[in-house]
C-alpha cells in the first residue's frame, strides 16, 4: 500500500530510473558524482571545471582500474538519491561512512579519516562547548551532513541553523550571525589558515571524534547492488596507496597524511 501510493506520486520520475541505470551498464565510463562546493576536496575552478582532492583520487582510481571517468556535480542534499536513481555510479565527495547512510548505500574502505571541530570567531569568549554551556547560542552547519546530525542530536537547546553549502555557513560565521559552527576538520583548517575571510575565525574546543557521527572515516559510496564495483574500487584504492600515488596527491593538498591523520 505504502509503496503503491508512493510510486503513483512519482510514477513518471521512477519510470526514468531503470532506463538510466541500464544505460550506465552499457557504457564503460565510470560516472563519479561529487559536490563541487567543498574545497579543498572538491570545488569548481575559476573556469567552471571540477577540481580538488576527491577528483584527483577519482582520476587515479580510474587510471588504476583502466576505465574512463566522467564527473558529475550534484548538490549535497540530493547526492545519495541521485546515486540511487542512477545518475552516476559512485560518490567520491568526502562523505563520512555512517550507519544511517549504510542503510541507503554501500561504502568502500575509508580513503581518508577525519574528525569534526567547532569553529568560533577569534574574538569569541566561548571555551566550553558542552550542550549546557551552548544553550541559547547560535550554532551553524551545512545541512544533511554528519555535523548537522551531531548538533541537531546533541544541542537541542541551542539555536541550530542549517545551510545549503559550507560556504554559506562560513559567510554567516564571518558576519557574526553565528556564535559557532561545526565543520569537518580539514576544510576548517584550510579555511581558517589559508583564506582571507577565514582569518576571522579559529578552531575551538576538542576535536569531535564521536564514532556515532564520524563513523569509520570517509568512504566512496556505491549502490548496494553494485558490489563488484565496490570491490574493484577497494582493490584500486589499495593499489594507489601502495604505489605512492595516494601520497603524491595527498601532499599536493595537505600538510598531514589524511589517511592516517598523522
Amino acid at each position, binding site marked *: 500500500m*505504502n509503496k503503491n501510493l508512493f510510486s503513483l*506520486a512519482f510514477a513518471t520520475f521512477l519510470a526514468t530510473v531503470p532506463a538510466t541505470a541500464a544505460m550506465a551498464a552499457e557504457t564503460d565510463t565510470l560516472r563519479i558524482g561529487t559536490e563541487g562546493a567543498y574545497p579543498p576536496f572538491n570545488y569548481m575552478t575559476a573556469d567552471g571545471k571540477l577540481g580538488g582532492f576527491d577528483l584527483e583520487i577519482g582520476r587515479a582510481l580510474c587510471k588504476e582500474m583502466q576505465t574512463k571517468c566522467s564527473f558529475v556535480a550534484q548538490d549535497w542534499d540530493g547526492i545519495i*538519491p541521485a546515486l540511487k536513481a542512477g545518475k552516476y555510479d559512485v560518490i567520491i565527495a568526502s562523505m563520512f561512512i555512517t550507519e544511517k547512510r549504510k*542503510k541507503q548505500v554501500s561504502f568502500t574502505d575509508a580513503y581518508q579519516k577525519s574528525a569534526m571541530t567547532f569553529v568560533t570567531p577569534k574574538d569569541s569568549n566561548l571555551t566550553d562547548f558542552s550542550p549546557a554551556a551552548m544553550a541559547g547560542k547560535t550554532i551553524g552547519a551545512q545541512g544533511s551532513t554528519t555535523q548537522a546530525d551531531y548538533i541537531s542530536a546533541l544541542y537541542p537547546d541551542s539555536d541550530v*541553523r542549517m545551510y545549503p553549502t559550507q560556504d554559506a555557513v562560513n559567510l554567516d560565521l564571518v*558576519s557574526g550571525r553565528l556564535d559557532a559552527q561545526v565543520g569537518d576538520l580539514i576544510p576548517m583548517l584550510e579555511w581558517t589558515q589559508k583564506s582571507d575571510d577565514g582569518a576571522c575565525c579559529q578552531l575551538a574546543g576538542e576535536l569531535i571524534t564521536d564514532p556515532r557521527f564520524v563513523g569509520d572515516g570517509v568512504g566512496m559510496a556505491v549502490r548496494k547492488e553494485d558490489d563488484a564495483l565496490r570491490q574493484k574500487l577497494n582493490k584500486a584504492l589499495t593499489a594507489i596507496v601502495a604505489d605512492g600515488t595516494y601520497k603524491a596527491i595527498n601532499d599536493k593538498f595537505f600538510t598531514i597524511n589524511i589517511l592516517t591523520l598523522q
Partner: protein
Amino acid sequence: MFDLLIEYAPRLLSGAVMTLKLTFISVLIAAMLALPLALVRRSGSRYLQGPVRLYISFFRGTPLLAQLFLVYYGSGQFRPELTELGLWWFFRDPFYCAILTFSLNSAAYQTEILRGGLQAVSRQEVEAGMAIGMSKGLLYRKIILPHAYRIAFPALGNEIILMLKGSAIASVITLLDLMGHTRRVFSQTFDMSVYVWAALIYLLVTTLFVLVWRRMEHRMTRHFRAPVTPSAPLTSVIKESTRVS
C-alpha cells in the same frame, strides 16, 4: 509512508506555521506599500514615477532567490556599517531578512496589479461622483478604491498564492519553514515520501485560501448578480412549471 507522517507531523506542521507567518506578514506589509505606490504610478508626478518604476522593474525582473541572497548574505558583508547605523539587529535575523525581501518583492507585483485596477474604474462613475460634489478624498474612498480593489481582487489572490509557494526558498537562509523542515526530515530519513506530504500540505493550504478568497470575491461582486424578485413565491413557480411539463 504513513508512519513517517505520524512521526514527523509536528515538525511539518510547525514548518507550515512558519510558512503562513512569512507569507501573510509579507503580503500585508506589501499591501500597505502597494496602495501609495500604485497611486503614484497612476497619477504621480514624473519625478516620483521614475524611482517607483525602477523599483518595480528591479523586483519583478530578478529572481526572488537572488533578492533573498542579496539581502541576507549581502547585508552580512556590511556588518560594521549596519551596526553603526543601528540596523544590524534587524539584518542579523534571517526571519526579518525574509520578511523584508518578500514584502518588497510582493509590493512590486501588487502595485502593478492595483494600478491596473485603478485604471479600469469606470470613468462615468467617477464623473458622477464629481457631479454631486464629492471631494477627492471621498471620491477615492467611496468610488475609486472599492472598484479598483474589486477589479484587482482575483489577481491579488493569485499573487498571494505565488508568495506562499515562493516562501519555500526561505530555507536557504536557515529558516525552518515547511520546505526547510521537509528537507531536514529527508536528510535524516532519505525517505522521498516526505516531499509528497509537504506538497499535500502546500496544496491544502492553497485550497483553503482559494475557498476563502472566492467567498470574499463573491461578496464583493454581489451587486452584479440580479436580485431575486420576490413577486412570486418560489414554491408556486415550481408547482407551475411541473404542471406545464
